[in-house]
C-alpha cells in the first residue's frame, strides 16, 4: 500500500490541478477464449503487464513535471491515461477535483488537457492541410466560427514560429521540427491548461531540440500552462522541469524538485541514471542505459523491482514492496533501505558510493 497522504506538493497551499492516487494500468497478455478457460481451470493468475503500477502524483497549476525512466517503464502509458485517451484499470484520477471520466464527458472541458507526441511524422494526419490540422478542433468544438478559421490558425502558427505560407501545405512538406511546431500549434489552438509532452523532442536533431525546448518554455509562460514532460534525456528534464518523477517498471521510485534530484539523488536507481548522464547534456543525445538487464515487465522481480540491479539490496528487498515515503519537503522515495530497519543511506549519495567501493 502506498501511503498516499505523504504525497504533498512542494507548495502546500496551492490546490493540485491534477491528482492521481494508486493509478494502475494492466495489459492482459492472454485474452483468447482458451486462455481464459485454461486460466480458470488451473487457477493460475493470467499473465499481464503492469505498465503502470500504483502511481500517485499531485500536479499544481503552473508546474512543470518531468517524468524519466528507462524504455518500457510505463511513461507513455501513464501519459495516455493522464491525457484521457486511455483508461486506467484502477486507482483514482481527479482533474480540478472532479473524477476524470466525469470531466471528459464535456468535450469543451476535456480539451483542457492536450498532448504533444513523440513522432512528429505520425502525429499529423498526412491527408490534411495545416489549416485543417490546427483549425479543425476549434471549429468543431465551437471555439471559433468557421469564417474565422484562417485568421485563428494563422495566429497560432505565428506563435509557434511558422508563417502564413504554410497554411495550405501537407505534413510531408515539412521538416521534423516544423511538424512538431504544427503539433504544438494544434494543441494550443484549443486553449489547454495542461500540456503532456511524451518524448516530444526525442525524434529531433539536437539543434532543433533546443529550439523546440525554447518554444515550450515560451508558450508555457505565455499561456500559463501546466506541463508534464516525459523524456529519456535528463539534460532536457533538468533544463525544463520544476519537479522530476523517476519511474522504474511501472512504479514511481523517486520524486524530487529538479535541483535537489540532480544534486542529491537518493534512490539507487536515480543515482545509476545520473551516472550514465553525459556532462554537457544538450550537445549529445543520450539514451539511458545502465548496467544489468532490464527485467521483463511481464514477470517483474518480487519485492522492490529494482533489487536485482541494486548495489544496496538486503534480503528485505526481494520480499517487501517499498512504499513511496516522504523524505523531506517535496521529496519522496520508494526504497526499503531508507525507511526500514537498516540504516538510511547517508546524504548526497556518498553512502552509496562508499558501499559500492567496499
Amino acid at each position, binding site marked *: 500500500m502506498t501511503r498516499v497522504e505523504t504525497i504533498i506538493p512542494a507548495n502546500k497551499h496551492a490546490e493540485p490541478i491534477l491528482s492521481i492516487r494508486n493509478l494502475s494500468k494492466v495489459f492482459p497478455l492472454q485474452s483468447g477464449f482458451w486462455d481464459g478457460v485454461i486460466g480458470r481451470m488451473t487457477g493460475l493468475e493470467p499473465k499481464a503487464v503492469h505498465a503502470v503500477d500504483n502511481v500517485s502524483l499531485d500536479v499544481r497549476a503552473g508546474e512543470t513535471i518531468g517524468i524519466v525512466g528507462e524504455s518500457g517503464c510505463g511513461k507513455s502509458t501513464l501519459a*495516455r491515461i493522464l*491525457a*484521457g*485517451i486511455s483508461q486506467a484499470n484502477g486507482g483514482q484520477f481527479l482533474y480540478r477535483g472532479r473524477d476524470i471520466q466525469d470531466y*471528459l464527458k464535456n*468535450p469543451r472541458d*476535456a*480539451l483542457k*488537457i*492536450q*498532448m504533444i*507526441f*513523440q*513522432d512528429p511524422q*505520425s*502525429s*499529423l*494526419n*498526412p*491527408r490534411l492541410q495545416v489549416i485543417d490540422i490546427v483549425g*479543425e*478542433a476549434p471549429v*468543431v*468544438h465551437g471555439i471559433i466560427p468557421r469564417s474565422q478559421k484562417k485568421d485563428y490558425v494563422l495566429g497560432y502558427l505565428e506563435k509557434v514560429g511558422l508563417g502564413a505560407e504554410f497554411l495550405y501545405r501537407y505534413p510531408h512538406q515539412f521538416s521534423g521540427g516544423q511538424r512538431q511546431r504544427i*503539433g504544438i500549434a*494544434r*494543441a494550443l489552438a*484549443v486553449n489547454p491548461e495542461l500540456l503532456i509532452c511524451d518524448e516530444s523532442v526525442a525524434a529531433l536533431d539536437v539543434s532543433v531540440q533546443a529550439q523546440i525546448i525554447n518554444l515550450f518554455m515560451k508558450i508555457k509562460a505565455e499561456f500559463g500552462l501546466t506541463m508534464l514532460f516525459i523524456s529519456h534525456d535528463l539534460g532536457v528534464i533538468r533544463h525544463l522541469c520544476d519537479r522530476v518523477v523517476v519511474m522504474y517498471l511501472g512504479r514511481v521510485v523517486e520524486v524530487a524538485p529538479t535541483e535537489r534530484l540532480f544534486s542529491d539523488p537518493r534512490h539507487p536507481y536515480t543515482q545509476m541514471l545520473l551516472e550514465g548522464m553525459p556532462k554537457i547534456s544538450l550537445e549529445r543525445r543520450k539514451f539511458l542505459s545502465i548496467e544489468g538487464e532490464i527485467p521483463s515487465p511481464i514477470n517483474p522481480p518480487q519485492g522492490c523491482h529494482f533489487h536485482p540491479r541494486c548495489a544496496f539490496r538486503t534480503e528485505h528487498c526481494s520480499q517487501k514492496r517499498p512504499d513511496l515515503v516522504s523524505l523531506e519537503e517535496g521529496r519522496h522515495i520508494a526504497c526499503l533501505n531508507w525507511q526500514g530497519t537498516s540504516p538510511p543511506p547517508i546524504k548526497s549519495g556518498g553512502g552509496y558510493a562508499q558501499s559500492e567501493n567496499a
Partner: protein
Amino acid sequence: MNARIAAFFREFSESRIALVSLGITLFFVACTVLAPFISPINPYDLRSIRLSDARLPPGTQQVEPVPELSIPLAARDGKARAEGVTPAGDPIVLQLVPDSDGRLALEIDARNMVVTEIRLRGLPIDASVQGARKHPIRSEWTLANPASTLHIETGPQIPANLQFSVLIKGESEGTGMTFLLGTDGYGRDMLSAIIYGIRISMIVGAAGALGAMAIGTFLGLIAAWFGGRVDSFIMRLVDFQLSIPSLMVGLLVLTMLGKGVDRIILAIILIQWTYFARTTRSVALAELRKDYVDAARCLRFSALRINLLHILPNCLPPLLVILTISIAGAITLEASLSFLGVGLPLTQPSLGMLIANGYEYMFSNMHWIAIYPGLVLLVMIVAINVVGDRLRDMFNPQLKR
C-alpha cells in the same frame, strides 16, 4: 495535389500493359456512359427488333420487309378494271381484257414502282398463267420477272364471272443498317446488344462492388475501432462467409429473391463485403497505432468523425485496389449467374446473358452470337484486373525500388 496526381499517373504508366489496360477500361466506361448515343439501335426497345432479322451473320445488311399490294379483280366476260395505290402514293391501274387468242390479258400500269413479283391468287382450277409458276397446292401463280402484260389462259371459254386478286410486290429496299456483328436469335443487333451488355455489366459490377465497399469498410472500421468481441464477431462472420463459394451464395440469394438488377447487386454486395471488411480492418488497425489518431482523440472528436474523416481517408489506397479487382470479380459473378439463368431478366441482357443465349446456337454454326460477347467480357475483365494489379503493385512498398 495536381502534381501528386501527375506523378502518380507517370508511375502508373511505367507499365505499358497497365496503361493499355487503363485505356481499355476507360473505353468500357465510355461505352457505359454513352451507350444510348453510340449504339446503332436500342436493343431494349422491342419495337425496333424484327424476328425476320434473326440469326443473320456479321456484315449482313438489313432490308426493309417489302409490303405487298393486294388488289382484288372481279371480271365480267373477261373484262375488269381496278385501281390501287403504291406505297409511294402513286396510282396503279389494272386492266383485264380478252385478247385475240382467247386469253385474258392483264395490263398492269404501275408507274414509278419497280415491280419485282406478281402473284395471282384465286384463279379457277383450270386456268393457267403464262410464264408463271404455280404453287404446288394452292391456286396461286407467281411471276418472278413480271412484264407489264400477263396472259391468263382460262381454257376453251372465258368464264362469265371471274374473281381473283393480284398481289404486287415492290422492290426491296435496304435500311442502310449493317449488322456488323450479326444478329442474335431474336433479331437483335449483336453490336448494340454488346454495347448495352457492357453497360449493364459495368453498372451491376460497379454498383455491387461500391455497395460492398461501403458496407465492408463500415464493418471493418467498427471491428478495428471497438476490437474485442465486436472485432471477433465480425471477423468470424467474414471467415464463415469466405468458406462458402461465392457462386453458391449468389445462386442461393437469387433463387430466393428472384431475378433483377437490384437483386443481383444485393447478391454481389453480400459476397464481396468480406474482402473490404478484412482489408479495412487490418489497415485501420495499423492507422490506429499512429499518433495522429491519439491526437484526434485528444482533440475530443467523436468516434464517427475520427473514423470517417481521419482514419478512413488513410485507408483508401488499398481499398481502391480491392475495389478495382472487386469490380472485375462482380462482373464475372454477374456473368456466371446470368449464364446459369438466375441473373438478369431477358429484356436487359448483360454480357453473360448474351453468351448464354448464344450458347444454344454454338453448334449450328452461328458462333457470332456467343463469341463476340464472350471476347468482350474476357477483354474487360482482364483489363480491369491488370489495372487493379498495377495499383496494388504501386501501393505495395515492398515492390518499390
